[in-house]
């Protein structure tokens, strides 16, 4: 709940500086919740965010890939928890009581909601972004699967990688993407 309140205040704070660095003529704006992982900032559509929780131990699933930390009981629903760091091939870090789990809720093809938790280093900010601000993900040919990258945005000279939650959730096994951010960064220049 605390985390939720924080997110809300972050939204409020951001409404005030929504104009900063963002083209004013873009009427169509979406709000993105961003979080930090290994110094990189990633964003997800805020409408997909169900809640933000602290880390609690999950029940491991047998023979699951390393980035699937297991399942937790979220008020009666079994929710898988994915370590996004490991998912992206970054170095795993130890979980602490302040480790953040973002619970995402996405309407999948079968018209039922799928819920999934992602473990990230920290929640960062909420931005209002216009469609025009978004640049397509660079083509990294076959080196990296960028299907789940919706686009790139510059906010206050920082690059934010917007993730496509649908793709992220439906990826059966998220491929080993060593240093996705680094590669994108270097290719963008």
């Amino acid at each position, binding site marked *: 709940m605390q985390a939720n309140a924080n997110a809300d205040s972050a939204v409020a704070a951001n409404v005030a500086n929504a104009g900063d660095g963002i083209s004013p003529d873009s009427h169509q704006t979406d709000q993105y919740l961003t979080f930090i992982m290994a110094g990189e900032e990633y964003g997800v559509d805020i409408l997909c965010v169900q809640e933000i929780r602290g880390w609690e*131990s*999950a*029940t*491991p*699933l*047998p*023979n*699951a*890939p*390393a980035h*699937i930390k*297991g*399942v*937790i*009981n979220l008020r*009666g*629903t*079994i*929710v*898988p928890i994915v370590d996004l760091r490991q998912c992206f091939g970054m170095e795993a870090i130890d979980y602490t009581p302040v480790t953040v789990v973002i619970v995402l809720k996405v309407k999948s093809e079968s018209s*039922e909601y*799928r*819920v*999934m938790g992602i473990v990230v280093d920290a929640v960062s900010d909420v931005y209002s972004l216009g469609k025009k601000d978004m640049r397509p993900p660079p083509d990294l040919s076959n080196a990296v699967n960028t299907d789940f990258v919706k686009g790139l945005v510059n906010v206050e000279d920082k690059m934010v990688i917007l993730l496509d939650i649908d793709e992220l959730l439906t990826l*059966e096994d998220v491929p080993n993407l060593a240093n996705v951010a680094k590669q994108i960064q270097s290719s963008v220049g």
Partner: protein
Amino acid sequence: MTIDLAQFHQVFYEESFEGLDVMESALMELDPDNIDSETINAIFRAAHSIKGGSATFGFTSVSEFTHDLETILDQVRAGTRKFSGDDVNLCLKSVDCMREMLQLLQGGDDGHTPLSKELKQQFARMLSSDTDVSDSQESIPAQAAELDSQGTTLWEIRFTPGSDILKTGNDVLRMLRDMGDLGELLSVSCTPNLPAFNAFDAESCYLSWRILLESDCEKSAIQEIFEWVIDESELVISETEGLSHWKILFKPGATILHTGNEPLRLFTSLAELGELTTTAFVDKLPRLSLFDCENCFMSWELSLVSSTATKESIEAVFEWVVDDAELVIAQESNSKPKPVSDRATKDVVQEQKAPQAQTPPKAQTPATNVAAASPPEIPQTKPQVAAESRASVPTAKPADSAPKAKPAPAKKSAETGSIRVGIDKVDNLINMVGELVITQSMLGQLGTDFDVNRLPKLLEGLSQLEQNTRELQESVMRIRMLPISFAFSRFPRMVRDLGQALGKDLQLEMLGEHTELDKTVMEKIGDPLVHLVRNAVDHGIEMPADRLAKGKPANGKITLNAYHQGGNVVIEISDDGKGLDREKIVEKAIEKNLVTPLECETFTDEQAYDLIFQPGFSTAQAVSDLSGRGVGMDVVKRNIQALNGIVEIRSTKDKGSTITIRLPLTLAILDGQLVRVGNNTYIFPLVSIIESLHCRREFINKVAGGCNVFKLRDDYVPIIELYKTFSVQPDAIDMDHSLIVVVDYEGGKVGVVVDELLAQQQVVIKSLEQNYRRVDGISGATILGDGTVALILDITGIVKLAGDKFVQTSARARMSQEGLQGLAQLAS
């Protein structure tokens, strides 16, 4: 106030579909040679309810259609019509047709189908030919004779409704009005049977009626009006013969009252002659200011029905006033022939009468006109062809079942509806909730002022709560359980129809119909079952001649069997047909590049039969010449697997095949045995556990360098080490401190090594697939008392997984001796 009838539609549909099921099964039971009145009544009642309901909601297409069917059934019920096998077929077809019409209506259509028109025409023909039959026989000859000679009959109807008639929503006035539509109501008299005023109950009916009706209708038409109330009323309908009907127009002069004459007294004495109805005309009444109460301004039209009255006797009544009044006395009886009586043929009479008897009366549709005029074959065959062309499945299908395929979307929407639960189950639930509330209040009281001395009381309350919760849970689950006869009920009909269509002599045996199964499972198993039964009939059972040649009885036997086995429901579909032809299946599979010839050589029979479950195994033409069961078996398998079920085939050439479906009892709950492996808690379905025992190293042997077997008394049981299979850290690799849980695996035994046995409890199954995906060896998850998630083991999956691991391990071990760590990596 207006009531939106649409809110009742769903209930109507549900009840109607149920009614149709009743009709169908009753028709199947019906033996045309020896008609059981109970059965025919059941069919009639169901049809009648559907008709009444559809008429109420204005679904005229259905009500008109059902009306004809009902007329025929009524005649059968009354014994005036012989019921032949063809008639049964026709009725069954009508059931299909009505089902389709209702489905169309549900989808917002008007409910007219080609089949319904065709059947209506057949009904019309049956009804018209029937008149001849009933004429030549007994039943109502007098009336029929009268129909011919004069056209009208004078009916006397004595109707004494039960006092509760108004409470049931019936309206006598409406019935009288309906009767007025049949002909001329000559006399309606209400005999007061009123109680004392203080005993009067406004909702009860104390009146009774004696009605005289002059009409050309049949007795049944009158009976029909009272159909809804007949059970609670006394009704006598008789034909009055020899009664004369007088019409008297009485227009007294203005001064008639001055002479001391009273019209009322005249009428009273007229009423002594017979049944009298009066109509007063007040059109001559002056304005109030000009009104003279000494003068008479009224005139009357009187209708007298009497057996004794003659013109003279009537004139005698008016003798004193005749000079001072205008009086016309005319005998009306039989003097106004209806147009019907002029018609020559009885067919036309019948045609006209059918719509007339309905409420509300409706003009004859052009379709029925055509039906009477045109030769029967033409309208009959056309829809038949249309129906056949719509059938997409290449197997021979009876034409009448083909239209079922079309309104599938409508059916789907109906399924999302409701569940009908026996009242006893609900009562039980209410009782239990009551007890739960009591326990809760007891615990609440304890909680408000608690001291340690009352701890035993608290514990007692808690155990009571546990008991209540468990019972409540069980009852709630039971609500969803239905006997499997719900899924089986369609098969007698289907097998019969298929048998007729294919010219095969079939016998269907159904066993274990009372086996209960979760409703959701039942809904999903229906279609696969239909498919399998259809296949058994179509491909399994040979033609009678072939069977005789093989020395088998001419009639093929299909057996449906359902029973509980462990935590599963097993459904078997067996036939005594020709069995599967392994050679042909393999041949076909190779031809379709599903397997290589090399692979096939090592196949067991079972593996070969399994090939027919391969997607793409069959195409339209492939099945007809193949002895196997081709069409869409992959779909069957997929559907069953989606229910966590297993499907197997056993077959012997020329002896028949058996397809076994193993399904979980319910998708929602199971009794579980909690076990611990390292830090992980897993749950075994309790039903699959045979025994648990301490592991003893000396009883363990290695077979073929890898797989461990445990000597269990005289048996050797293969052992699965769960920690290896799931790649988790156990307490100790040392077998001596472990436990072995011996579980049932497809009829055999398998030992699973765990660290500790924990509690047994009922667990609610939660899906992993909903948010994640299927995990091998795990059938689902549940939430334990402390809120953590525990995984439910899938025995079959574990065995398979262990087998795979074993293969991997041995392969791996040969290569690099990496052992368990390497295995874990391999798995991830």
